[in-house]
């Protein structure tokens, strides 16, 4: 997962490019950046930037969640989980996958904000898919990890 500032910059640049087709003067850029920042601030509260959450928003949930998958390795494990996330319109921000002997484990950091489905629906689908693949799937809001590991 990229540094949140970098993520923000990328987001802004991609929006500008989309709108202007790549040909932007310096002045236009300044105006557009200001507008985009305003829009982003309006659209997304700062809490969307995970661990940069200010302490006074502790009562608000992050829209990110962490999916951990454990099971005996077999073909199609990554697809099994990511297909559901794609189908439910969730944004995968980070993915890491390892083997310990024949044990497969995968950790995904997912943003559920774009999805029309609520957290519980997504969680239930993922857990159910895990069972079909004889893997154990845990889906937890990112805040648990933030609270337990970081100040």
């Amino acid at each position: 997962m990229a540094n949140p500032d970098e993520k923000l910059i990328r987001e802004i640049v991609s929006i500008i490019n989309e709108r202007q087709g790549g040909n932007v003067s310096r002045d236009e850029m300044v105006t557009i950046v200001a507008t985009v920042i305003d829009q982003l601030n309006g659209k997304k509260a700062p809490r969307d930037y995970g661990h940069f959450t200010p302490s006074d928003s502790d009562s608000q949930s992050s829209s990110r969640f962490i999916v951990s998958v454990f099971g005996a390795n077999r073909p199609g494990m990554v697809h099994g989980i990511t297909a559901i996330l794609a189908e439910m319109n969730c944004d995968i921000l980070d993915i890491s996958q390892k083997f310990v002997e024949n044990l497969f484990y995968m950790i995904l950091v997912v943003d559920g904000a774009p999805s029309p489905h609520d957290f519980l629906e997504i969680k239930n689908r993922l857990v159910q898919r895990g069972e079909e693949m004889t893997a154990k799937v845990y889906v937890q809001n990112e805040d648990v990890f933030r609270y337990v590991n970081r100040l």
Partner: protein
Amino acid sequence: MPWSSEEILETLRMTEVEHLDIRTTTMGISLRGCAADSLKDTLANTYERIVRNAEKLIPSATRVENELGIRIANKRISITPAAIAFEKFGTEEMIRIGETLDAAADAVGVDFIAGFSALVQKSATTGDRNLIEAIPHALSRTKHLCSSVNLASTKAGMNMNMILRMGHIIKKTAELTADQHGLGCAKLVVFANAVDDNPFVAGAFHGVSEGDVVLNVGISGPGVVLDMVRQHPDVSFNELYDIIKKTSFRITRTGELIGSRVASLLGVDFGIVDLSLAPTPEPGDSVGDIFIAMGLADVGAHGTTAALAMLNDAVKKGGMMAARNPGGLSGAFIPVSEDQAMIRAVKNGNLTLDKLEAMTSVCSVGLDMVAVPGDISEEILSAIIADECAIGMVNNKTTAVRIIPVPGKVVGDMVDYGGLLGSAPIMPYHNLSVSPFIRRGGRIPPPAHSLKN
């Protein structure tokens, strides 16, 4: 900073392998103003106040459990000490109030409602006496109701009249619930220095200086601490202390997160996080096993008190930074029937009431979930309470007694209460006369160091 897989796996180990759960989210509800001229109106007001405030407690807690993947073992309610809220009523009416509280708990689906209580550390009012006399009947006729009586404090001393009376009340409660092995006594605690914001049942109540509604959280997690201690069999006490502190910090952070989320969903104030290690009868979720992992052959061995003192303090220090408002009892609990290692130690003859009493001078509570033969005298029960109150009063700490004189049972028998209350071995006590002492009556004045100003 991106998540490392170590951070994620470490957290999953706590929640999935080591039984980390939040022991309780307890909603404190003030019942001040519910008392009306008639009993009928009083009951209606009380029922309405509780149900209106607590109807969303379980749905909100369940939602947070699901989102965070951390179990909240219990959802409970505490109320203004009933003797204060319903001072004007007689004993029969107090029993009816107890039944109404039980019905309200049933309606919102919580397992316990606590605060059928009186604070009589200095002296008792008529309402206090009426409530105390109602306790055995109220507890025998209800399922969810819990009761507590504060009998002593460092500031007020020890109310020996009421300590004597509570010996009788405990015995009577056991007799009225004899068909369930004296289960009523598992829902009755007597205290010295009871705290206003304790979220743990049976001793919870919503203190008189609290606001209208508050949500308090009691953490748990002996399994997590046990695992960390087992992983470090050879380190020095300094290192072990530090390891326990760090573990407690992590456990408490989950309590802080859960409390703030549930309170926010309910739209009520988030009160305190109680940093207590509370065992359950589940294997691995034991405080006693932590002493064994520290290197003692069994709970009750010489050294157990030192081990508990260290554990208790490390848990507090680790948790203090993790919670905005630490409070409640905060320490380690040693309820015998709820802890596999303690049950085993009593059965082996290694853990006695005397050793437990010593342990209570350094932990957060007292003689907890201790079963004794049903034919113990009321005076001896009172004397056991007096000893615990003295420890609390002089050491400026909370102590408690939750003792069950199990009708028809003798030393060596076992009784099974099921669920969180576990199973209790019947313990021996010193069967020596205390009658002339305990019947003197009056008050033991507070210690010199109560005059702090």
